């Protein structure tokens, strides 16, 4: 692991939940102190509920119900803080692990399940307002950073940012990982974003591992420093501290939306689970390392903080009940998911009719029909 420069790190909550802002956190302190108790509880609720969903999905995969599951376990604070920092009009581009981000924006978690069960390559419609301008997952690493940048260019061209109206101006946030940061597309996205001053936040979740490859193989210098090379303000945060994630992302998004151009954030975090359910992390990392990060668990940290502030037992019991209800609901609905029609694969290849696709669809229908009603 690359040593973290603590003087640059924005952190509000210590691993034990004590409110102890780091020096770099000072500029954000006032905003964080203004967060009301209800919102603080929402942050906790988001994290705890999605963890229950994540554990349930992992179990469903183990039981053969899903082809694959990429757990978000351990990265909840980075995701909740940043997603809650986005305003309703903002556009979000996840990669494939941002389960809580999508849920916060309104995407039904069963839609992620449908992707991982092999029922769709998409899952939801980003143009449907109920999905909160959330784009679909992208499995080709880094690709989505360019799509986010292009959308940001469109916002600039249409004058949908930089007018000075924070409630209306739009911004974009794009999520990617430490491994993805090595992809050429991420570099090109940063070049385009800075050339066109897109209202965009590059949100890098450094969870220390790209499957089995440590971050040191991706970069010998701290990743947040790269942003500066492109001309972007770049900030390092403790990704396991939901308050730091919220405050820095809120500020960066607002600066971007106000015309300040793209911004970069590196969230120092850790995936406590496997990369996906096909992965065996015991082959490449030590239990000591995992244990040291488990002691920095973002949910336990927030819980301790809330208890210190006097949150009630009833609140935690309520979150527990909601978590259980979501997990149960997902299991029930997963089991109830139907199959696909053969015809579905021909349905959306093009928006306009394409004769080759039409002919092959018809051929398959006729071929299938030839078996019906008993062959001679």
């Amino acid at each position, binding site marked *: 692991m690359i040593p973290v420069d603590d003087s640059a790190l924005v952190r509000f909550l210590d691993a034990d939940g004590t409110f102890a802002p780091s020096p770099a956190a000072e500029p954000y302190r006032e905003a964080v102190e203004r967060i009301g108790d209800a919102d603080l509880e929402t942050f906790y609720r988001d994290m705890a509920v999605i963890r229950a969903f994540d554990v349930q999905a992992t179990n469903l995969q183990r039981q053969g119900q899903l082809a694959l599951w990429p757990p978000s376990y351990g990265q909840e604070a980075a995701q909740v803080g940043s997603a809650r920092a986005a305003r309703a009009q903002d556009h979000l581009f996840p990669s494939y692990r941002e389960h809580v981000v999508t849920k916060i924006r309104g995407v039904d978690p069963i839609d992620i399940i449908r992707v991982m069960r092999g029922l769709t390559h998409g899952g939801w419609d980003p143009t449907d307002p109920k999905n909160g301008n959330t784009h679909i997952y992208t499995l080709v690493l880094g690709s989505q950073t360019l799509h986010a940048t292009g959308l940001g260019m469109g916002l600039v061209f249409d004058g949908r940012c930089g007018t000075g109206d924070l409630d209306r101006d739009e911004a974009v946030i794009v999520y990617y990982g430490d491994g993805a940061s090595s992809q050429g*597309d991420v570099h090109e996205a940063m070049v385009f974003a800075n050339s066109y001053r897109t209202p965009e936040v590059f949100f890098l979740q450094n969870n220390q591992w790209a499957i089995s490859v440590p971050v040191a193989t991706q970069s010998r210098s701290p990743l947040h420093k790269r942003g500066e090379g492109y001309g972007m303000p770049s900030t390092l945060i403790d990704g396991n501290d939901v308050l730091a994630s919220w405050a820095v992302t809120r500020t960066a998004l607002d600066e971007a939306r106000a015309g300040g151009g793209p911004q970069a954030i590196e969230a120092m975090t850790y995936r406590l689970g496997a990369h996906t359910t096909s992965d065996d992390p015991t082959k490449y990392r030590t239990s000591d390392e995992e244990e040291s990060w488990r002691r920095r668990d973002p949910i336990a940290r927030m819980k301790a903080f809330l208890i210190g502030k006097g949150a009630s037992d009833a609140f935690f019991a309520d979150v527990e009940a909601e978590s259980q209800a979501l997990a149960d609901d997902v299991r029930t609905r997963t089991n109830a998911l139907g199959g696909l029609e053969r015809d579905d694969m021909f349905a959306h290849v093009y928006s306009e009719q394409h004769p080759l696709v039409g002919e092959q669809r018809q051929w398959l229908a006729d071929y299938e029909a030839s078996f019906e009603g008993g062959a001679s």
Partner: protein
Amino acid sequence: MPFSRAINAGLRAALAGSDRVLLMGEDIGKLGGVFRVTEGLQAEFGEQRVLDTPLAESGLVGTAIGLAMAGFRPVVEIQFDGFVFPAFDQITTQLAKLTNRHEGALQMPVVIRIPYGGHIGAVEHHQESPEAYFTHTAGLRVVSPSTPNDGYWMIQDAIASPDPVIFLEPKSKYWQKGEVDTSARALPLHASRIVRRGTDITLVGHGAMVTTMLQAAALAEAEGTSIEVVDLRSLSPVDYGPILDSVRRTGRMVYAQEAPGFTSLGSEVAATVMERAFYALEAPVLRVSGFDVPFPPAKLEGAYLPDADRILEAVDRSLAY
């Protein structure tokens, strides 16, 4: 009007017709593109409609995708055929599939203009025929105009298409002149066209090869052979109607292309014609192609590219059956 000016006029009409249309590319603004196809358009429509972008092909196509998501209709220029590959990932894994992955909820009206093919004596990676890579990818439409009139209309139709279109411009034709009828289009985007009537054999091809096929037909006529020539125009989907009609009349077919022959567009069209018009054929469908080697240095391109003689050799072989 020269072919390059015709495409320029088509782009101008599209830019004037909708302020959602954007041109993006390397050197397309002030310079007007290395082939000057976009000349004058930035001066007329401004730097925000005609963008001189950073030098990054994946970035170009990837951000065009995002712009389409924001409701624009980007037209991307790739400077030369050999430079499309850095963008290949964004084209084939993203652009081609996003409508499908969104189950139809999102359209991808992005046009990628690529000057392609040989005959200009250029240096390495400046004369390639990458069409099969794109025709092999579902979700893309691939077209190639071969005349100024088609250049003018097909670029507008491509921009109007809700689906991504790979727009292959035969670069050796940029200076070729021809009539442009700006009052009405002759054919829809995806129609093939019989450009010369004949009775003995059908020649099929696309792009710059159409001119070569017409030369071959003129030479053959002097020797008493009547050749019909079909311009594919649309490489995906292929409009088989006129081709099959023609083959049913002549009983013979030769496909001519600059691209290497192995697993090429010509292979696909030949196989399909044999499947659908088998009993009309007097001879197997033959292919005349570039060789299965990297496009050679310019001094050898004359040996690499099919010319009228190589086409006529295949015509003779077909007629000898």
